């Protein structure tokens, strides 16, 4: 689900937005702040808390909106100047790396580097785990994970529908094909790209909040480590392919789960090994078709 936001931007603009990882973190922290929880012992804002106490789900939605707004600001400040100059996509990537580093360290500067956990029972009275097994063979699955999976499938379906069936989606695909021609045809490219960034930021922020509710927020670098694995996911699914991003996520999760116990210490390397192999064998992704190199 995290990867969907990446993919959305890549599919339109052909750039990898490293700042997305930072937005993901921001979403988690915004949600944390909006639930009225206090920040810890270090940093500038120690022991402060917002006067409002929103329930988790509302906080997550508002947090995602805020993350989307931040994504818009990033687009205006760090991407548009480069795009207007027609700069190399690699430069945009470097610029987005810079943004990511700034956001992460500003968070650390403001609220310190501790772990934060959301208040207990973020999903109200639902049981913490649901039994999927039969009789004596219990297969408990945590409710949080079901929620995350459900939400990501819904978001994927909505985005796919939006991109392929609506007029706005059609306009966006036209921009992806050729931004100059699209703008000549009367499509407001800048506005639509802003919209893309907003949606991608929202999806990123929401996934930050949800994943934070599953494993707690592990400091400001939480998003970056997730982001690097997210890269593996989108390459696995094929860059710019939204259903592919979900498939990639599932495949990677399974691959990590099947690491034999004696090699469990190498689990963190699996994502990157998969990324490396995919790049060598099938850079177009699992579901993708080979793309012709444009000259």
């Amino acid at each position: 689900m995290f990867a969907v936001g990446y993919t959305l931007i890549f599919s339109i603009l052909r750039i990898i937005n490293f700042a997305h990882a930072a937005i993901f973190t921001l979403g988690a922290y915004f949600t944390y702040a909006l639930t009225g929880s206090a920040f810890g012992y270090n940093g500038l804002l120690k022991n402060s808390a917002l006067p409002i106490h929103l329930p988790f789900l509302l906080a997550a939605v508002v947090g995602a909106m805020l993350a989307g707004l931040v994504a818009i600001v990033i687009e205006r400040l760090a991407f548009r100047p480069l795009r207007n100059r027609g700069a190399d996509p690699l430069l945009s990537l470097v610029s987005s790396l810079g943004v990511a580093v700034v956001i992460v360290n500003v968070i650390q500067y403001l609220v310190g580097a501790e772990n934060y956990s959301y208040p207990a029972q973020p999903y109200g009275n639902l049981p913490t785990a649901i039994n999927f097994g039969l009789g004596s063979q219990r297969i408990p699955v945590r409710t949080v994970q079901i929620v995350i999976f459900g939400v990501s499938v819904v978001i994927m379906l909505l985005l796919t529908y939006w991109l392929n069936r609506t007029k706005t989606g059609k306009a966006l695909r036209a921009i992806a094909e050729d931004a100059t021609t699209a703008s000549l045809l009367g499509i407001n490219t800048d506005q639509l790209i802003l919209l893309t960034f907003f949606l991608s930021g929202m999806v990123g922020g929401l996934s930050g909040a949800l994943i934070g509710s599953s494993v707690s927020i592990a400091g400001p670098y939480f998003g970056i480590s997730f982001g690097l694995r997210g890269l593996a996911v989108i390459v696995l699914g094929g860059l710019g392919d939204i259903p592919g991003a979900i498939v990639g996520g599932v495949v990677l999760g399974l691959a990590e789960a099947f690491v034999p116990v004696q090699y469990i210490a190498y689990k963190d390397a699996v994502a990157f090994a998969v990324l490396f192999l995919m790049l060598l064998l099938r850079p177009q992704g699992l579901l993708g078709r080979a793309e012709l190199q444009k000259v």
Partner: protein
Amino acid sequence: MAVFFATYGSLIVAMLLAAMLALSLYLPLLAGQLSLASPGFYALGGYVAAIISTRVVPFDSGAQAYIWRMGTHEVARFSGPLYPVSLLIVEMLVAGVLSAVLAIVLGLPALRLRGIYLLLATIAFVQILQVVTQVLDLTGGAIGIFNIPQPFASQLGYAWVVVPLLLLSAGFVYRLERIRIGRAFTAIREDELAAAAMGINLAYHKVLAFTMGAVLAGIVGVISAHSINTWNSRQGTFDAGITYLAFVLIGGSRTFLGPIIGGIVLYALPEVLRGLAAIPGLPLALAQLLKDGRLIMYGLLLVLGTIFFPQGLIRPNLFRHRTVEATPRKIEQQ
């Protein structure tokens, strides 16, 4: 002056090392290959030094001890037997050869990829290396290797190795930019297709540029490991890669002077700002920012640099042709 060098010896050495790391990132960039693999080879070099000096060579580093004396200007001097410099050079050779072999093995398949894909592959390489070194016993696991013996009595002593090495590598890159191979690199950077059409072997030159950068990073790793005395998997990470990238891109990615000066200045910048933070009367928040905001600053510089100075601050014709450069711009504006 003596006090200055005794106090800032390690900083000066680290600045020069940073310049060389920036140069190691600059080399693949010369051929248009954006790679973040340098930290990986840097880490590899460090481990080579740490393993050879603590496990292979029978050298008792326990006999070395720190002497701290501020009064008579002796800060962090080592007493006891010193690690032989000849072995340090052997380590540098081993690290260089190992880095070269690994770079070729890695580079041959990875450099078929272009642009973003190569960057992703090198990020993956750095991450895999980090996990592997965290797990293996040979590299000391997550704790790393301690008590790497010191070849020099004071930190400034490293200058005997670092300064000649920096001059050598700078001279090497200076020459490289002017011979056939360097021109081939530039041609590939400007237009891969046109370069191939002119009969330049793309794969050969890309791997060559990548390998040269890797060798330099590996050698720098050896010196760093001795200089900071301990080595673990937190050396040479993704973050470090971004820092080097900032050195190169801010300094200038079109001439070898760019990364060198960028590395030296940007490495020293946080220290200078830390000094500024001590000025009385500054608001607490600002002072804190000046003290701890190193990465915030690098990040901002990366964004501003890519927008306003896409070729970096130091451009090849900064020192000459100033009038010549000014004229075509005016024409362009009309």
